[in-house]
């Protein structure tokens, strides 16, 4: 297994390099001069010349890319066109907020999604199964930013009206207290909750068809033990994988949720930067989220090999 892990780590290197190259190259899609794009439209000719020299824009592409990688490794992702603040310090300030939101959403989706999936699988075609799977389908289908807005209407308008309260139950936007986290967490969690419920149900149904479940029942084991000790533990491996992969997807989804709730994370930073054509910030934010995504997927793969003794990796 050590071999597998080492090989998997080595395979991640070209992917990370390729993704970084993509981000590095993206500035060239902007119509016009990349130096102007990076320095900002209002930059003086001197500043543009300075950027050109700093980035080595007159050098061949592979030299430019090496310089880009070297600078990025040192934590230098350039300066924000809008604020002049180094991109890396801006990202370092925002990243913990995004991680906090993504982690809270992941926990919430797992503690609700998995039990729903297990229960649905133990009573297939019951009203609970039908109802929860319909909800799960709606959860996958609705745009998460729209769900966020619906939560706002619910917690800030409808609920206070029904309960006859003077103000919103939860603050619609901003950050600072746990109350600010409730709505963004629910909005971000809904989609992966639905995916986990469907996945858990499918895995459980598959496991419950196995011979050893029949054996467990035949030897007179009570149903609860059959479900939890024999079926659920075996179904857990693919479920854990899906949860791990969800974390990366949540990082991407955070862009939308953070925009809705004005949550000061890296996703909102990205969207604001797009509005200002602040390309160094856009590149930095995308690179950091992508590296996070690749590393999470890598960790899940390695965990999978560790968790499931049946899987052999050559």
């Amino acid at each position: 297994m050590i071999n597998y892990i080492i090989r998997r780590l080595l395979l991640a290197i070209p992917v990370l390099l390729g993704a970084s190259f993509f981000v590095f190259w993206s500035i060239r899609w902007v119509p016009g001069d990349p130096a102007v794009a990076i320095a900002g439209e209002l930059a003086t000719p001197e500043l543009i010349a300075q950027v050109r020299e700093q980035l080595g824009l007159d050098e061949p592409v592979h030299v430019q890319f090496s310089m880009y990688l070297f600078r990025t490794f040192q934590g230098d992702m350039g300066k924000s066109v809008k604020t002049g603040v180094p991109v890396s310090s801006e990202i370092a300030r925002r990243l913990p907020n995004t991680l906090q939101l993504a982690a809270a959403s992941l926990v919430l989706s797992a503690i609700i999604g998995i039990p729903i999936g297990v229960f649905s699988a133990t009573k297939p075609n019951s009203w609970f199964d039908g109802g929860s799977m319909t909800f799960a389908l709606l959860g996958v289908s609705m745009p998460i930013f729209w769900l966020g807005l619906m939560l706002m209407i619910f917690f800030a308008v409808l609920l206070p009206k029904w309960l006859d309260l003077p103000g919103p139950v939860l603050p619609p936007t901003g950050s600072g207290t746990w109350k600010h986290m409730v709505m963004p967490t629910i909005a971000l969690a809904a989609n992966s909750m639905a995916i986990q419920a469907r996945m858990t149900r499918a895995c459980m149904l598959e496991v419950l068809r196995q011979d050893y479940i029949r054996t467990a029942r035949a030897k007179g084991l009570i149903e609860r033990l059959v479900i939890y000790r024999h079926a659920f533990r075996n179904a857990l491996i693919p479920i854990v994988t899906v949860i791990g992969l969800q974390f990366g997807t949540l990082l991407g989804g955070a862009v939308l949720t953070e925009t809705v709730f004005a949550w000061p994370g890296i996703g909102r930073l990205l969207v604001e930067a797009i509005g200002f054509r602040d390309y160094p910030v856009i590149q930095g934010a995308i690179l950091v989220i992508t590296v996070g995504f690749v590393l999470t997927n890598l960790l899940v793969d390695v965990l999978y090999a560790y968790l499931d003794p049946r899987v052999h990796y050559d």
Partner: protein
Amino acid sequence: MATTTTTFDTPTPRPLIGYGPLRRLMRAPMAMVGLFIVLAFIFVGLTADWIAPHDYDLPDFSMARKGPSPGHLLGNDEIGRDMLSRLMHGARISLTIGLTSVAIGVSFGVVLGVLSGYFGGFTDLLIMRLIDIMLAFPSILLAIMMVAFLGPSLQNAMLAIGVISIPVYARLVRSSTLTIKEESFIEAARALGGSHFFILLRHILPNVVAPIIVQSTLQIAAAIQAAAALGFLGIGAPPDVPEWGNMIQKGRAYIFSAPHIVVFPGLATMFVVLGFSLLGDGLRDALDPRLK
């Protein structure tokens, strides 16, 4: 002497649509719900010009932000335009985005997947590493990145959404091709002197059509969702275009005073995405019963 009577079973009438995939599809109620939603959506998208009750682009400031009324069934938007008419025209835009981006995804993804699976070796390695790099980005982020750098427009949004679907098709077609190329009829075609191009076109491609159809149905749903997300972020269709995500973004400022401006485009997106997902799931079960 006992008389024997021979009875003949009345022949059961031959089912109109046979026992093939179509019959399996029609027997799945959820898939039929999906098909109904999809057909309704396509119908509205195609006929929006004729069936929309009002001019979708005509503001009426006296009606701004008014809720549903008999004259305007879904109310009016922030500058008094009829919401229902805008949603109907939005269906056309979503349909266009869905089909165009799927066309982009299919054309590039299928070519890459077939080449990768059929030739294997270095070609496979090269193409699959490229696909891995594309999959390194959360897909919505890749779309955001492309639109942010290429410049916000409907065309660039469609292009970006199409590009993010390429890896899905490439992997799907590659795995199907890997299975099919081991079949004896491919060996026979090769023994008869069939060229690579001939074998790919006549023997491999027709056999990967079914999974492509299934994936495309699901992909249209994903494309509509992604387009709405880009519209909501303000980097999709131009502001005055009645794209559903755009409408939600515009209505956001009035969410507490006129929630209907936000509610209806979201519901429309949700139901259309649901319709394509249900139909896609149904098609998968119908075309490949082994997967059920």
